[in-house]
């Protein structure tokens, strides 16, 4: 009986933590956005309202809002992908090439894994190496499955595991401004990326 009680207590405390956490985060966000003038407040539509934590290809833990101040080009992929992902990677590289040197430092290119179980930081790092994307401007992120699902929901990216190795997913490259607001989305593979490049250049100015 003692054991059950202990179990219930543990279960209860877990419950309390998981719910309070998100409220606390929201409060912190609310505080920073009303109090501090030094930091520009983020808008209601900013992805920096998401309280999720991510790990980079170098094993560093970051929050999305650490990316604040940069123009973001984001895409969701997984490294064991044979079909669409290499083309999405090529699309991202292509976009990066077309951004003028003067703006290059203002832009961060972000790949978010939809397969966090497989895509460990090591795997992401190898993927970056294979694709010659070891420069700081290329960022590879991995989160929890729940945060990944939530992030995809924000990006309107749909995905589903169709076999142990493969996912079916929407091919969307999203551009965010310095405040984390979605500005432009490019859907499809190998499509004309002129508009995406232009959106990035306009923001980086």
């Amino acid at each position, binding site marked *: 009986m003692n054991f059950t009680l202990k179990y219930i207590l543990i279960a209860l405390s877990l419950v309390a933590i998981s*719910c309070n956490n998100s*409220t606390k985060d929201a409060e912190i966000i609310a505080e920073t956005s009303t109090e501090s003038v030094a930091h520009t407040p983020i808008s*209601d539509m900013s992805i920096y309202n998401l309280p999720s934590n991510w790990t980079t290809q170098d094993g560093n833990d970051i929050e999305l809002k650490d990316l604040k101040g940069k123009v973001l080009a984001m895409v969701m992929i997984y490294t064991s992908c044979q079909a669409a992902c290499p083309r999405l990677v090529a699309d991202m590289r292509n976009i990066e090439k077309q951004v003028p040197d003067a703006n290059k430092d203002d832009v961060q290119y972000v790949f978010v894994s939809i397969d966090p179980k497989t895509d460990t930081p090591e795997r992401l790092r190898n993927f970056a190496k294979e694709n010659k994307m070891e420069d700081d401007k290329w960022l590879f992120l991995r989160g929890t499955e729940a945060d990944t*699902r939530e992030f995809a929901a924000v990006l309107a990216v749909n995905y589903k595991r169709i076999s142990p190795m493969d996912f*079916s997913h929407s091919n969307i490259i999203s551009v965010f401004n310095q405040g984390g607001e979605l500005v432009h989305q490019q859907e499809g593979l190998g499509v004309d990326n002129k508009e995406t490049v232009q959106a990035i250049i306009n923001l980086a100015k």
Partner: protein
Amino acid sequence: MKFLSTALLLVFSLFYEVNAQNNNMALVEGGVYLPLYGTEDKLVKVDPFLMDIHPVTNEEFVKFVKENPRWKKSNVKRLFADKSYLNSWTSDTTFTGIKNAPVNNVSWFAAKNYCECQGKRLPTIDEWEYAAMANKDVPDARRIKSYNQYILNWYETPKTFNKPVGSTFKNYYGIYDLHGLVWEWTEDFNSVLISGESRKDVDKDANLFCGSAAIGASDLMNYAAFMRFAFRGSMKARYSSQNLGFRCVSDLKN
């Protein structure tokens, strides 16, 4: 040793039962099922889980909103809910309609956080579909005419969202209202990829498309389910809709 483990198991199952009753949840025994979008060799395994026997009501959602002010309609961030969020509510804490009708016009983010705050979560599509195959008597009634007719009749009935929870049939597991009042959010609603949705070059879910072809082949068994998948495929997480509510589930294992 054997006695001890049996005793432990007994204590655990007792706890789950108490837990289930306290929270108005019912046990859905796991198993395998053939989803709408599947093929013969693609049986999906569903682990046992506990499911709320009713959808979340207006009254329950008001309480949640009071405890979590960031979900008040005047506070909610547009990233997490569009303008139709709690559309019919006349203030932050007053709803229209009856108190024990299912809450509607809530976004996926709000529904998800509601469940998290109860120590629960939204069901996956597979869990929801699995529990919803049941009629009063059997766990999989999808080939029974009256089961399908019930759902199709519901689709033709207006404003069912304003009926009290529990007013439809109690299914095999003791769960109410999976069909008959509102559609419900699922955790992975954005895993539906429908061919012909207004997107270019999305990796097409050919199996799902076969599901729609089945309708043409006069197999009405899955028509109602196909409607649900099509609806899910058309939703975004910040959208809300008058005929969409939610309920929560929780894992059986600790």
